[in-house]
């Protein structure tokens, strides 16, 4: 990779932004300087242009989180994942659009307008890391970072036809990732090649003294494990998850993937996740409870937006938050406050944490008989912008296949597996035991070798 590669990425980002609205900030000058500085560094990511979701802190760039309450806030430090990415020679070219504070499944909750899907610009790219997903799908950058709290990397990856990884909880540092739900959040990776996801994870993963929840688990050479050999692999098939609520075309496409794995030598094992159907209910209690607490810090005192003409302190807090937050963020803060409030804590929050244990146990039991599970990533392909904005519950049900991994802490990857009749991407998801990223990469890689996804969206960076 060279300075020219970075410049091409910047130019593509600039040219396509009117169409896609994927970037909230593009740092042409700074990125070119950094690219020149690392060109001969020999780092594993030397000169690779990277797009970063606008809720991950990059020194010198904004971190709006897609919210008016942060606006053009500039953090005074790098997130640990950015520190490591930069050390390895990666060049951040800009910050990508996202649902406000990563709350959403369509990118329509950004205060700065929705991102558009490169496959059909009247449709959503998924969310909340929609800008990062679209930037990779449109060929602007080979890799991008996002955050995944309930599927915010995997679901948009599926809707735009790229790979999206949510690592094991504690694999990546959350230091410098603006907190939404701390027990669920992980930094995730988008790319078009499995090798690239593996290489980037190898760079950013590992223990960080700034994040006490990072685990002291060695980081293997993820690229070396991509052998393509699936002999002896056991793939769990949770049949019950292929029923009501799943688009038929998506279901059939993922079942065809199961057949491919069987042909590649994997053994297919029936598994059951009896509590998976409760995952959305559990998720929207725990995630909103944690969010209501995490977002209490946005009070107009130390950084970001402050409402004008508020002569009294509490009024200043309330009006700042009222004017600074968008509807979905307020709704979730309200829900979280409600489920944590006196008299309701046991009925909602404690109950949800108990069912979370049951969901975790479902996975632990399943992984006794298989190395990974296969599911759809999203129940449908990309839906039209505006279709679900007035029905929050319908929007939440988009996350039905992805939230379980965050609740259990296990890793998951979404892999593209073709196009629908309307030429919209379909993705499948692999979920594995804790720290099984090498297994997920090996499985994803073997599939991609057997059935390469080479289609390009109508909106794609010119490859001159």
């Amino acid at each position, binding site marked *: 990779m060279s300075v020219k590669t970075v410049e091409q990425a910047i130019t593509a980002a600039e040219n396509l932004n009117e169409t896609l609205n994927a970037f909230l900030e593009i740092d042409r000058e700074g990125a070119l300087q950094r690219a020149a500085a690392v060109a001969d560094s020999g780092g594993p990511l030397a000169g690779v242009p990277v797009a970063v979701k606008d809720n991950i802190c990059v020194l010198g760039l904004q971190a709006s989180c897609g919210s008016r309450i942060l606006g053009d806030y500039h953090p005074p430090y790098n997130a640990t994942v950015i520190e490591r990415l930069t050390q390895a020679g990666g060049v951040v070219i800009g910050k990508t659009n996202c649902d406000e504070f990563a709350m959403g499944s369509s990118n329509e909750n950004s205060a700065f307008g929705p991102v558009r899907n490169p496959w059909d610009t009247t449709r959503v790219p998924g969310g909340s890391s929609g800008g990062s997903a679209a930037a990779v799908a449109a060929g602007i950058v080979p890799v991008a970072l996002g955050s995944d709290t309930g599927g915010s990397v995997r679901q948009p990856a599926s809707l735009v036809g790229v790979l999206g990884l949510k690592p094991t909880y504690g694999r990546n540092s959350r230091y410098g990732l603006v907190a939404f739900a701390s027990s669920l959040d992980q930094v995730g990776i988008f790319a078009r090649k499995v090798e690239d996801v593996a290489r980037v994870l190898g760079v950013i993963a590992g223990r960080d003294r700034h994040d006490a929840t990072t685990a002291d*688990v060695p980081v293997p050479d993820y690229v070396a494990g991509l052998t393509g050999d699936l002999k002896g692999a056991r793939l769990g098939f949770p049949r019950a998850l292929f029923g009501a609520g799943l688009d038929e075309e998506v279901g059939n496409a993922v079942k065809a993937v199961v057949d491919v794995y069987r042909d590649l030598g994997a053994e297919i094992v029936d598994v059951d996740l009896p509590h998976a159907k409760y995952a959305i209910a559990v998720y929207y209690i725990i995630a909103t409870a944690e969010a209501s607490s995490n977002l209490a810090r946005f009070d107009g005192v130390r950084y970001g937006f402050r409402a004008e003409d508020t002569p009294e302190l509490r009024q200043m807090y309330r009006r700042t938050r009222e004017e600074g937050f968008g509807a979905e963020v307020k709704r979730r803060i309200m829900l979280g406050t409600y489920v944590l409030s006196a008299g309701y804590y046991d009925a909602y929050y404690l109950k949800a944490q108990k069912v979370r244990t049951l969901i975790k146990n479902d996975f632990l039991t399943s992984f006794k008989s298989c190395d990974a599970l296969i599911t759809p990533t999203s129940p449908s392909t990309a839906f039209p912008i505006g279709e679900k904005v007035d029905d929050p519950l319908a929007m939440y049900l988009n996350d039905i296949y992805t939230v379980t991994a965050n609740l259990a802490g296990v890793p998951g990857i979404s892999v593209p597996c073709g196009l629908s009749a309307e030429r919209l991407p379909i993705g499948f998801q692999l979920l594995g035991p804790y720290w099984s990223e090498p297994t997920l990469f090996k499985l994803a890689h073997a599939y991609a070798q057997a059935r390469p996804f080479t289609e390009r969206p109508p909106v794609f960076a010119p490859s001159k």
Partner: protein
Amino acid sequence: MPIEEKDIAKVAQLAHLELDEAELKVFGPQIADIITYVEQLNELDTANVSPALGGLTPEGEKTDSSRDDETAASLGQKIALAEAPDPAEGHFRVPKVL
């Protein structure tokens, strides 16, 4: 459990949000819908189930995250105040409290 507009107003107050009339009207039924949906968890008998605490893996739980109690450089006043909406004399200035 029915949720009324006054419950929504109370929660807004707890959350330091000053919702307008229109928001109170929209949020009420939406939150009631979601609460009804999550109450499906009551189908499950969890009397003998321990609650999950946080998202840690067994390896994460075993990780020692203590560190030596040593002084280290911090941001410093100038950088800490650089993004403040109303800094004054090296402090964060807020409207009157009483």
